[in-house]
């Protein structure tokens, strides 16, 4: 018989071992899934996880996709650590993209490189403003931030649809629902020639390090952690939970908005009805897989970015639906949550009953 026995102290090994175990289990389950669908498991796992990054272009695409995931997930981690459940990063990303895109479209013939800077600020502010709504409704009216931030995601997506079908539609675009292409000055410079990897990747890396220092070395990081772990203790220590709500959501919104700006000023180059294939939602998985730790999140983002590329590869090579990516990502989060039990419990084999 297998049962769980509570550990006296959380296992340090499993805090880092659980994500690894979860990835291994997901690979096994994925192999079984491919096998059940009648594909050679080994070959399809190769196509999914190794083929996409077997050349430089593939690696650059991996880094490109990891950028929005990293940014959104770090923002979410600031909230999640303080028990602020912002799940509207997708909408905040969209509003950041809209704010930055509107500027690029309005001054489409400028050659000043200042416009990029303004777009970055607009993206950050657009995302933060969108996240400020749930923060205000939560602190002022106690409205559940999970539901409000999610509802606002649908509103943001519809707003983008309205803009590219109406005010921001390209006048010479044959009525396609998309804005005009951004001018040269409004596009992020590329890091690697013949790739789509842009300087946003460097900025994202800088943010990872900054977030790590803030969360581990500053009073702000400590307050967030205490509010999240023991709200009562935080209250007695004079830490304001309202402040943590505001900060969690604003940081989350700002980083998601920046990610949106990077997408439209990077690989997309215009406003379209769809900016992100669900980066804002997938970032929830990235945040958990990375243990809400900026460096962990960076690793997790690379892995999840790989699942997007892998999904595209098996779609082309095995004509499997792209949705297989979502299945993999969901499975990964399930396994991760399940494996986390091993942090506080040990598996015990045998019939011996625990003495209470």
């Amino acid at each position, binding site marked *: 018989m297998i049962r769980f026995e509570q550990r006296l102290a959380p296992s340090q090994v499993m805090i880092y071992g659980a994500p690894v175990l979860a990835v291994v289990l997901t690979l096994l389950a994925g192999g079984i899934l491919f096998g059940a669908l009648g594909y050679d498991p080994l070959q399809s796992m190769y196509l999914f996880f190794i083929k996409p990054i077997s050349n430089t272009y593939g690696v650059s695409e991996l880094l490109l996709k990891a950028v929005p995931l990293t940014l959104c997930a770090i923002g979410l981690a600031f909230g999640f650590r303080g028990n602020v459940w912002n799940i509207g990063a997708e909408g905040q990303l969209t509003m950041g993209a809209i704010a930055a895109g509107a500027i690029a479209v309005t001054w489409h013939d400028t050659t000043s490189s200042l416009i990029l800077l303004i777009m970055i600020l607009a993206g950050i502010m657009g995302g933060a403003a969108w996240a400020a709504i749930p923060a205000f409704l939560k602190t002022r*009216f106690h409205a559940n931030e999970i539901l409000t931030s999610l509802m606002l995601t649908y509103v943001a997506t519809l707003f983008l649809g*309205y803009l590219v079908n109406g005010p921001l539609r390209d006048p010479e675009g044959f009525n396609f629902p998309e804005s005009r292409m951004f001018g040269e000055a409004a596009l992020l410079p590329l890091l690697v020639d013949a790739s789509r990897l842009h300087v946003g990747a460097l900025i994202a890396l800088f943010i990872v390090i900054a977030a790590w220092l803030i969360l581990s070395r500053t009073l702000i990081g400590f307050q967030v952690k205490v509010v999240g772990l023991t709200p009562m203790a935080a209250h007695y220590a004079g830490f304001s939970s309202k402040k943590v709500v505001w900060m969690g959501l604003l940081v989350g919104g700002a980083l998601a908005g920046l990610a949106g700006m990077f997408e439209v000023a990077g690989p997309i180059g215009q406003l379209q009805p769809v900016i992100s294939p669900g980066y804002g939602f997938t970032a929830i998985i990235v945040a958990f897989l990375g243990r809400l730790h900026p460096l962990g999140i960076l690793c997790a983002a690379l892995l999840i970015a790989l699942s997007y590329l892998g999904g595209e590869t098996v779609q082309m090579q095995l004509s499997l*639906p792209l949705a297989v990516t979502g299945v993999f990502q969901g499975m990964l989060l*399930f396994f991760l949550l399940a494996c986390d039990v091993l942090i506080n419990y040990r598996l015990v084999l045998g019939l011996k009953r625990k003495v209470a």
Partner: protein
Amino acid sequence: MIGFELETLVAILLGVARGATPLVFAAIGELITEKAGVLNLGVEGMMLVGAVAGFIAVVATGSTGFGFVAAMLAGAALSSLFALLVLFLHTNQVASGLALTIFGIGLSAFFGLDYVGTPIKGLSGLYIPGLTDIPVIGPLLFGHDIMVYLSFVLVAGCIWFLNKSRWGLILRAVGESHHAAHAIGYPVIAIRFAAILFGGAMCGLAGAYISLIYTPMWAENMTAGRGWIALALVVFATWKPGRALIGAYLFGGVTILQLNVQSMGLDVSAHLMNMLPYLATILVLVLISRDETKIRLNAPACLGKPFQANG
């Protein structure tokens, strides 16, 4: 002129019922789950899996009835994954529910891919000769599809179950104080498991209503956030089934209103009109949540808290 307007009005009211019914099923399912003390944020995922399972079953068998059964089984099966995680592995309920939604979205898109664009015959309203022919009242009382009537039966059954039946009282006890319920000897975990499965089945049914009756087709993500609206409805209803029904009809009304404003040729962008249900949800949440004590008094005391027998 009057006759034409009445006909339009009847059509609108029938539409309201169609818009509300999936919300009723999903909200009641979640309400029972939450009454047992479990917060399952996976409603949207379970609805999508129910929608696709029901659709595939109808394409395969041609029977709408089979479709609904398949949807309930699929929803319950998916919710059992959630149950395993939160009840036996003590995972965070918020995170596990989000995982369920993400997984459900991927899974439904995966299995539904071959069915995008496949036509099926939707279920039409009842027609009882004589009765349904009565102007205005006839179609409104006797002209809905069978699921609309079932949703009312479900709500009535739920009110009776929670307030009058022994098992309903036990379910509430488990949600209010799992340690007390456990001490008296009630199987807390088993009751929560059953409540989660029931919630999953109802969400599956709600999804199938959308893919089989509301818009008889399958499209990725076709529930379009109704699962989240259903979650908000439970808060709006302060965990009372009757109020969940009223809330669902208010939202059904907003949805249909938005469709009709468009068909009346008003020059408002469809994108902006489509925002209405989501904005209405936020507004209602704010209005209800303002009174924090009211929420605290009505919410099951153990909602979202994990239970361990020897903890």
